């Protein structure tokens, strides 16, 4: 049940998604691997959480009320403390245009839902 040793990590991950069930799945996967998870339901809340404390990685959805994930990445990149923090986008969107917008905003990578827990953990370990 424990993740393989190479995937047992520590660090704080900010998980952003407007779907409660998605947040549950992400939290379950990340906490199981040893990460501490801070959750937010949209970009505005995520920005507040990010400013409150230190976050090692941001994992965000794209389509959310109030502030979308790409705007969140852009806003965070403008903060000195988040200039080099890895930011992964986890979304159902696979269109090249949106992906390019994410890349230009400063995202580190793009993951299309549904995620495979093992692959998500391996990707996070790679960019952290």
């Amino acid at each position: 049940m424990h993740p393989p040793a190479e995937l047992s990590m520590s660090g704080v991950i900010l998980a952003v998604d407007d779907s409660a069930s998605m947040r549950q799945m992400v939290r379950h996967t990340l906490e199981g691997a040893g990460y501490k998870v801070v959750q937010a339901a949209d970009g505005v809340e995520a920005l507040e959480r990010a400013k409150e404390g230190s976050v090692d990685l941001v994992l965000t959805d794209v389509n959310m009320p109030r502030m979308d994930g790409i705007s969140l990445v852009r806003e965070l990149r403008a903060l000195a403390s988040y200039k080099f923090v890895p930011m992964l986008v986890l979304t159902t969107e696979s269109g090249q245009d949106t992906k390019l917008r994410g890349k230009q905003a400063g995202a580190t990578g793009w993951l299309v839902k549904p995620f495979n827990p093992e692959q998500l953990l391996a990707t996070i370990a790679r960019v952290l």
Partner: protein
Amino acid sequence: MLASPIDTADTAEMQTARAWTPEQQIANMLELCGVQMESALQDSDVAVDALIKAFTSVAETARVMNSMAEQLPAEARQHIEQALNKQLDEITRQIAAAVVSFQFYDKLTQRLGHVRYSLSSLAQFVCDRAQSSERDQWRRLLNALRRLYRTEEERKIFEMITEGISVDLTTTTSDAQQPPKTGEIELF
């Protein structure tokens, strides 16, 4: 001054008669479909939430049992190690499969939300007779709806339908016998 019940009934009847147009009937039917979908989704949300809570609880129990097994004295563990590891690997595999499957509900909610928005846009569109008789306006509506469909599956179906190709769901959807397909990963 309060209206008598008879006056009220007459007014309602007159209003209904005034509002009756084929376009309004189509709009009402589309609205009915949208609300039925929304209602079913709200019921499902409650059930899925309960299911996810149960799942995370079971997964957590399995994790605790694994920790307990690791603390067994080496001698005791030796006898059961192989069988135990086999069972734990199987649980890990099943949990990972469940995590992937649960995400399809999120995708379903999102896709039905797009369908609902499309129905509502169409309802408004058909009620405007001047607009709906213009071919160019239909093209604009389709373009607006195209932007709405952002997942690969939605786009594929949208393109096929708008190009007049009949959609064979056995070729556009996943094989039910195969494990659900997970998404692609790209690092920039």
